[in-house]
């Protein structure tokens, strides 16, 4: 099972985890990306996310399919929030179920790492005194 989603409403971590539970699996790894209240010492008020939605969904599904094959995952769910997220809020949840735990970690980390490299989603940080589109770390 692979499920990818872009959502304007808050992500429901429990429902996403439940969607990958499988009686054949012994391990689930879940990554939750949250909005930090600081970046380089400046207070962040909120983030604003946008996506090229049809392409983002396609890329995300292709990343999950690759992870499923490489690590023999039973199920992978990757949900990304769009729109405005306040600090402390959840921007992304990736959940992977596998028979063996090392595969769950590896597959989950691959999905989030590759998402950040390749999926057309952008975030703008909003500060007291301005806002900036985040550029990825080199």
């Amino acid at each position, binding site marked *: 099972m692979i499920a990818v989603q872009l959502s304007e409403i808050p992500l429901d971590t429990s429902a996403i985890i439940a969607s990958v539970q499988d009686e054949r699996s012994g391990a689930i790894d879940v990554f939750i990306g949250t909005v930090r209240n600081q970046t380089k010492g400046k207070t962040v008020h909120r983030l604003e996310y*946008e996506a090229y939605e049809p392409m983002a969904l396609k890329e995300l599904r292709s990343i999950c399919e690759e992870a499923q094959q490489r690590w023999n995952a039973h199920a992978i769910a990757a949900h990304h929030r769009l729109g405005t997220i306040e600090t402390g809020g959840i921007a992304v949840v990736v959940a992977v179920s596998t028979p063996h735990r090392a595969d769950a970690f590896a597959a989950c980390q691959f999905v989030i790492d590759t998402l950040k490299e390749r999926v057309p989603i952008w975030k703008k940080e909003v500060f007291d005194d301005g806002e900036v589109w985040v550029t990825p770390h080199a």
Partner: protein
Amino acid sequence: MTITIKFFALGRELVGANALTLDLSDGTTIEGALAHVRAQHPTFAQLPSFLVALNTEYAEQSTMLKNGDELAIIPPVSGG
């Protein structure tokens, strides 16, 4: 031929539009379409780096366009 170009994030803000529709002569490449955008919207040149996607796939700028294509300007992504 008519193509659409979509803009996101800083690219969208620099151009001041989510999307442009361009009428181009047959045989125009992605690079040629980008030259049109820079001519119409000089601020677009301020976008420091970007990739392009053609019909939701990353593409080379030398690719030739055809009628109805959807081009997208993809600034460095920052999801997650």
